[in-house]
C-alpha cells in the first residue's frame, strides 16, 4: 500500500518537475509546479506530517503559485519561449553535466551509506501520529521556538514593505524632499536674551520658512 502510494506520488513529482523544466509557456510551467507540490504534499501525508501537507497545499499551491500566475498575467510574459535557441553556447550541455554530477553524487552517497540514514534519535517532542501532529507542532513552535516565530513575523513584514516599495510606480514628478530646519553653527541660539523661549521659537519659524523657500527655489 505504502509502496504503491509512494511510487505514484514520486512519478507525479518527477513528471511535474520535468514539466517545469521543459514547458515553453510559463503558465504551463506554473501548473506543472502545482502538480509537483501536490505530489510532495501526498508524500508528507505518507510520513504523518499532516499539518505540513495542508500548509504545502494552502501556502504553496494556493498562494505562491497564484502569485506567480498573477505576475505572469500582469507582465504579459505568457508567450511561449523559444527553447530551440541556445543563447550561450555550451550552456545546456554544461548544465546537464553539472546536474548529472550533482544527482550522481547524492545518489552515490545514499548507496554507500549501507546502514541507511544515521543520527541520534530526536530529543525534541515526539512526532505524534496524523491526528496529534498539529498540536505537537504548535506546542513546539510557541514554546521552544517562539523567538524564531517572532523573527518570522518580522521577516514577513519586511518582505511586504519591500515588495510594495519595489513594485510601486511613481506618478508625475518626484516630490521635493522635506527640508528639516537645523540650527547652524553660525547662528547659535542666544539663550542669554530676555524671554529666550519666545525668541528661539521665532528663530525657529524664520529658519523653517527660509528653508522652505530655498527648497522651492
Amino acid at each position, binding site marked *: 500500500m505504502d509502496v504503491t502510494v509512494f511510487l505514484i506520488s514520486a512519478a507525479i513529482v518527477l513528471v511535474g518537475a520535468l514539466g517545469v523544466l521543459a514547458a515553453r509557456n510559463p503558465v504551463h510551467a506554473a501548473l506543472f509546479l502545482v502538480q509537483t507540490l501536490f505530489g510532495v504534499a501526498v*508524500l508528507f501525508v505518507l510520513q504523518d506530517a499532516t499539518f505540513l501537507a495542508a500548509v*504545502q497545499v494552502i501556502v504553496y499551491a494556493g498562494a505562491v503559485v497564484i502569485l*506567480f500566475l498573477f505576475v505572469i498575467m500582469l507582465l504579459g510574459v505568457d508567450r511561449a519561449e523559444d527553447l530551440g535557441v541556445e543563447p550561450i553556447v555550451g550552456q545546456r550541455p554544461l548544465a546537464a553535466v*553539472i546536474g548529472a554530477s550533482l544527482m550522481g553524487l547524492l545518489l552515490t552517497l545514499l548507496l554507500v551509506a549501507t546502514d541507511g540514514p544515521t*543520527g541520534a534519535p530526536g530529543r525534541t517532542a515526539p512526532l505524534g501520529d496524523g491526528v496529534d501532529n498539529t498540536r505537537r507542532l504548535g506546542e513546539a513552535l510557541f514554546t521552544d521556538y517562539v523567538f524564531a516565530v517572532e523573527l518570522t513575523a518580522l521577516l514577513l513584514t519586511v518582505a511586504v514593505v519591500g*515588495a510594495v516599495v519595489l513594485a510601486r510606480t511613481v506618478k508625475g514628478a518626484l516630490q521635493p524632499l522635506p527640508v528639516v530646519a537645523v540650527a547652524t553653527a553660525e547662528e547659535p541660539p542666544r539663550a542669554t536674551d530676555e524671554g529666550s523661549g519666545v525668541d528661539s521659537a521665532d528663530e525657529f519659524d524664520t529658519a523653517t520658512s527660509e528653508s522652505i523657500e530655498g527648497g522651492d527655489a
Partner: protein
Amino acid sequence: MVVTTSWYLALGAVLFSLGAVGLLIRRNPLVMFMCVELMLNAVNLTFVSLGAELGDLGGQLSVFFVLVVAAAEVVVGLAVVVAIMRRRQGATTDDLSVLGG
C-alpha cells in the same frame, strides 16, 4: 517491500538536481524562480523524511520556517521582476548583464 527513508532521500536528490538543471538552462526569470521552488521542496522532503526516521519534530519545524522564508523570498523576488520588466519589456536574465558593471 517497505518504503524506507532512503527512498524519500533519493527522490529528494533527484528533485533537487532537476531544479538545479532548470535553474541553469532556463532564461525566463519567473521559470527560474519556479525551479528554486523545486529545490526548496526537495530539501523540505529530506527534512521531513529524516525527522520521521529519527523521531524528531525538528525536521517538520525546519520545513515550517523554510516555507515562510520561501514565501517572503518569492514576494520580494517577484517584485524585483516586476520592477525590471516595467523598464525592459520581455527581459530575460541574459539581458540583465548590465548589472555586471
